[in-house]
Every structure is written in structure tokens, then in C-alpha cells.
């Protein structure tokens, strides 16, 4: 290796060391900012009620996490875990079906030419601008007309639509599903539906995971719709359940401890979903642009 090559190699890293350190510092601060509340939550959940205010908030007292979880499970016959299951079904099954629906819509808009295609797409895109809270009350009135409020479907059905997912799916389908492959599949005798499920979805996999994750989080956090629709404690998602408990604190102060432990447990499925699937969407977001 010549000296000039070495110099060329060394120079770039020396120049950007400062900017790299600055970037790392900012990222560290941001990481700290986001993680400290979770740390507080974890520490708080391990404490017994009596130690709650007398020990430092950022460090442990006596370690009582499992006893606290046990008390939470015993309160009202374990309704908290019912709520967790509800949330997982609303969000998991809801996001899965929403992903399929959005993928089909996006694929159709991307790959089929039909009259009104752009109009349909623009209307759907307009749906991205409407926040879920604005839709909750009209949905309540709609469901009241058919007498379906306070049921599982009243929260599940509205969760199956994802305009943003349609947008993502369309973009991804146009860029990563080549028309030639579809032609080839048609020539081989595959029907449109079969082509979609066996060929296109595999190519669109990273986008599908992204849509799934977005929709999962959005359904998990959707608070106003269950608040308006549900009156049966057994149907609550965990976000609404914890909120209801929190409003009862003045009646039964002990419940505050359950709210805190419940909050810690409730973020676990989201963490699992993200950490488990991040491999897919990290790869995918970038590769669609490499065409």
C-alpha cells in the first residue's frame, strides 16, 4: 500500500471524528430521554407500596416484582390478563387482517389499470389525514343503529382499515413487483389471486411487515374508540382498562400499584413485536429504493 493510499484512507475518518462524536452524543441523549421513563417504570413496579415514596425513584428498594405481579393477577380474578389478551387479539389479529386488506388494495392500485384508479387512491390517501378520534363518535352512532356497540366487533372491525398501509403497499408494489413476473405467472396459468398470494406478497414482505407494525401500534394505542364503544369490563383493551383503574384511585388507593405494574407489563408485547420484526422492516425500507 502506498503512503498516499494510506493518507486517503486516514484523512476521511479524522475529519469526521468530530461530527461522528457529536452525532453519537445527540443519539445518546435521545436514547437516555426515551429510556429513563421506562427505567422508572421498571423500578417502580418492583417496589412494594410502602416503599414507593420513601426510596429513590430511580433505584430499587426491596425487590418485589413477582409478588406485585401476583397481586395484580389476583385482583378481580385476573381481569388484567384478560385485557392483555384482548389487546393482543384486537391489535394482532386486527393488524394482520388490515395488512392483507391494505396489501391487496395497494397491489391492485399499483398493478391494474382501471378507470378511477387515481381518484380512488387519492380518496384513500385523504383518509390518512383523518385522525382516529374524529371517527370514533360517528362509528359509535353507526354501530348503535345496528345494535352492535359494546361487542368485540365494535372495536375489531374499525381497526381493519389502514389508509396509510394502502399507500405503502402501492409504493412498494410498484417498485418491487416487476410486471414481467406477473406476466410470467399469468402465462403459467396462475389466477390473479394466486399470483398475489404466492408471488407478490413474498416480494412485498418488508412493506407488509412495516404496515403490520404501524397498524399494530396504532390499534394498540387507539384509546378513544374502545372508551366510547365498550361498557363490558371483559372486552376492554389493556390501555382502557388501566385508565379505568387509574380513575378509581381516589376510591381504592391500592389500585395505583396495579396501574404501575400493569403499565410495565403492557409494554412487553409491543417491545417483542418490534424487536422480533425489526430485521424485516429495517432491510425492507431501504431495499425498495435500490431499484
Amino acid at each position: 500500500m502506498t503512503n498516499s493510499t494510506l493518507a486517503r484512507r486516514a484523512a476521511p475518518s479524522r475529519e469526521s471524528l468530530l461530527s461522528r462524536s457529536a452525532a453519537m452524543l445527540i443519539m445518546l441523549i435521545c436514547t437516555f430521554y426515551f429510556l429513563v421513563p421506562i427505567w422508572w417504570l421498571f423500578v417502580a413496579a418492583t417496589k412494594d407500596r410502602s416503599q414507593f415514596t420513601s426510596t429513590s425513584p430511580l433505584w430499587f428498594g426491596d425487590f418485589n416484582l413477582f409478588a406485585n405481579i401476583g397481586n395484580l393477577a389476583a385482583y378481580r380474578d385476573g381481569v388484567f390478563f384478560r385485557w392483555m389478551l384482548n389487546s393482543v387479539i384486537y391489535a394482532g389479529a386486527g393488524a394482520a387482517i388490515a395488512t392483507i386488506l391494505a396489501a391487496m388494495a395497494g397491489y391492485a392500485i399499483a398493478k391494474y389499470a382501471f378507470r378511477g384508479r387515481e381518484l380512488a387512491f387519492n380518496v384513500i390517501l385523504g383518509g390518512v389525514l383523518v385522525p382516529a378520534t374524529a371517527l370514533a363518535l360517528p362509528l359509535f352512532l353507526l354501530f348503535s343503529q345496528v345494535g352492535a356497540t359494546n361487542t368485540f366487533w365494535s372495536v375489531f372491525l374499525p381497526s381493519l382499515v389502514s389508509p396509510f398501509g394502502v399507500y405503502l403497499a402501492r409504493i412498494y408494489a410498484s417498485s418491487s413487483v416487476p410486471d414481467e413476473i406477473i406476466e410470467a405467472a399469468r402465462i403459467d396459468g396462475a389466477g390473479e389471486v394466486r399470483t398475489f398470494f404466492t408471488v407478490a406478497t413474498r416480494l412485498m414482505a418488508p412493506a407488509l411487515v412495516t404496515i403490520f407494525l404501524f397498524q399494530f401500534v396504532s390499534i394498540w394505542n387507539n384509546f378513544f374508540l374502545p372508551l366510547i364503544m365498550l361498557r363490558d369490563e371483559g372486552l376492554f383493551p389493556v390501555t382502557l382498562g388501566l385508565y379505568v383503574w387509574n380513575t378509581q384511585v381516589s376510591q381504592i388507593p391500592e389500585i395505583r400499584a396495579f396501574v404501575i405494574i400493569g403499565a410495565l407489563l403492557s409494554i412487553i408485547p409491543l417491545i417483542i413485536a418490534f424487536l422480533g420484526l425489526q430485521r424485516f422492516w429495517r432491510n425492507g425500507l431501504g431495499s425498495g429504493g435500490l431499484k
Partner: protein
Amino acid sequence: MSTRIALRAGALIAVTALALTGCAAGGGSGSADAACAPAADGEKVNLTFTSWLPGMEDAVKIWNAENPDIQVEVQTGPNGNGGTYKNFFNQIAAGNAPDLGQIEYDALPNFRVQDGVVNIADCAGVMDAKSQFVDWTWSQVTFGEDNAVYAIPQDTGPEALYYRADLFEKAGIPVPTTWDEYAAAAAQIRELGGYITNFSQSDINAFAGLVWQAGGQWFTNDGTDWTVTMDSPESAKVADYWQTLIDGDLVAKYPPWTDEWNNAYNTGELWTWVSAVWGANTITSGAPDTAGNWAVVQMPQWNAGESAAGNWGGSSTAVLTGSKHPYEAAKFALWLNTNADALTSMNKTANIYPATIEGAKLPVFSEGLDFYGGQKIYEVFAAAANEVNPDFTWGPTMTQVYTDVADGFSQVLAGNGTVLDALKTGQDKTIEALKAASIPVKG
């Protein structure tokens, strides 16, 4: 093929649009004021009851076992101001409200003004039940109208003074019996490094309770018009009193119901709390290290020798508009709030203190509590419950009033403005809100 799809899509859109307009046209129903008739003989009636009291199902189970023809299903949700009142109004508009709902006294005028509750005076047994309840609770559910009952009182929050008996004794400070003595004690306690109490920026209904004790009113209704009097002389007297304490740094400023607030009691920084009967449990839970050191006495008075009490909180059980079985619903509501087993159950699961005269004599209220040095604290509250002014009136928009005044109070604690200014601003905003809602108001 594409034309057929377009036609189908068009039809679908049209049908949806029609359905939506149908929904928009459906509106509120009138109030169901008809005579209260029971269901046909042998017909089984199913009622729904929305309550946020924890453990309500246990009390209802007792009823369901004894009344196979009238079965009640309990539904739940957040507390009233946390969303359930809004849900009631939405459900009344949509026609699927529960038969019975838990409504706090300060929210009942709101429902009355919007025709959200049924007048159950004609239902069997309701008017006769008046003598079972503490008098002021009955005024809260009848608004002084003749031949009208809008809800059955459930529980009350008579106020008294919780104080650290050990700290007062050690410091040699006599327990205050008047507000003047309270202010003097506040100064002495501050010298020792503590605070006599915390000024709550967000418990506006507690502040209203203090005005209630002083004989003041925030709202009056002469039958047609409302008058908002949040700056009335008694209200101003209470406001100025607390402003003096705030100015002299004699009260703490923690946001209530937080860890810091609990900690301040737990470490002995705060020496007293003017609070309702249900506050006993809050102290036990939030300040466990202080067990055995507390006691309860009548709350401070404006004039020596008096025994007026304020009230903080309390709910009623109302029959909501649109219920198809007001007779059975009223029957259940009466049972729930007068039956000894039901009241004991609700006290056990939700710490409520009954609104009935007999309820104050339940066995559970005659025990001494270790946390309070063995004192039978409920005797103080039973006495206080009988000293609450029966004429206090809540306005029809209390949730908004609380928000407006709480904003003002947090400014006061930050050093901007006085308590009275906050009340006046709240009053102006309330008058505007009432006018905007077309509710007749003077001024």
C-alpha cells in the same frame, strides 16, 4: 368488467351515504316523564346499570339472587368526569343508554338540564323514601322541585379535619377549632419546618365544599334563570383566607394525588388534611409510615361554637332517559342505596359512606381504626353529615367549571393572580358557556 365494478362500487357508496344520513337524522329523544308503570305480571325484566364503583357486582349479585324477575347487569367504565358522563350523553342520543347510571351530585344538574334523567317521583316507594335519607342529599336529587325526584342518593363525603395528633402534641400546638386558630397554627407549624396542609390546585369540588361550609353558593336557580355567584361574599371570604395562607408560604403547593403529595404526608411534612370520610383510606394507603399517629376532629369553623360541615363528593343512582323499565329501575335503585347488605358490600369494596340515616349506624362504622390511634372516626363523620347545608346548588356545567378554575388555581400557585381572581375568571367563562349552550343565565 370495469363498468360492472364501477356500478357496484357506486351502489355501495350510495347505500353507505344513505345509512349515514339516517344516523345523523336520528336524534335525542324527549324525556320519558310518563307515569311509572310496572311490567306485566311474570314478564322478566333485564336492566343495565353503569357504575364505576369497584365491586358493584357483589352488591348486585345479592339483588339478582333475590329478584329472579328483575335481573341487573353491571357495566363499567372510567369515572364520570373521566369519560362516562360523555358516554351517557352519547348513548342517550343514540338510544342505547343503560337503564341506570351512577351520577355524582355535582353532575346531576347537567343531566337534568339536558333531559338526561327520568323523573321517578311517580314510581312506587320513591317519594316515601325521602325520610330515609339525610336531608341535604334529598335536596341534591330533587333540586327543591315539588313532585320530582331525579335520582336516589347513594353516598356522601362529609368533611372533617384529619390531623397528626402526635406532631401537634409534641409541638404543644392546640388542635384548631376555628379557621383563625388554623391560620395561627399554620404559622407555628411553618416555623418548625412543616406545612399545615397542601393547597390543592385541582380539587375544585373540595374548594366548593369549603364554600358550602361557609354558607356560600356558587350557583342559584330561581326556576327559569341561573345566576352564577362564584364571587359571592362567602366565597370571597374563603378565597381570601386561603390567599393569605398562600402569600405567607404557610401551605404547600404539591399537585395532589401524586407521589410527591403522598410522600409529603408520609414524611410528616404535612400535618393536616381537610377531607371527606373516604379520605381515611387515602391516608392509610399513601402514608403508611405514619400509622397510629392520626386522629380526626370536626373541621375548623368560621365562628367559634358552630358545627357547620362541608361535603366533598358523593354519587346518586339515576334512571337514564330512554329506559324502558323505569319502575323496575327505580325499585332497584331504592334497594341498592337503602338495603343494609348492599351498603355494607359497597363500603367494603369501594369505601363509600351511605347517604341514608340508618346507613351511618352500620356495624362497619362502629369500629375503632388502629391507623387513627384506635379512634372511632366515623362518629365524627356521622355528626358532620348532619351539619351539611341542605341548600347548596351545583351548576349545569360543573366539569367545565372545574377545569376553568383549576387553570386559575395553578396560576395562583405560580404567583400570578389571587384565588378570588381565579374564581371570577371561572365565573365569567361559565356564564359564557351557559349562554353558548342556550341555558338561561343572568349577567
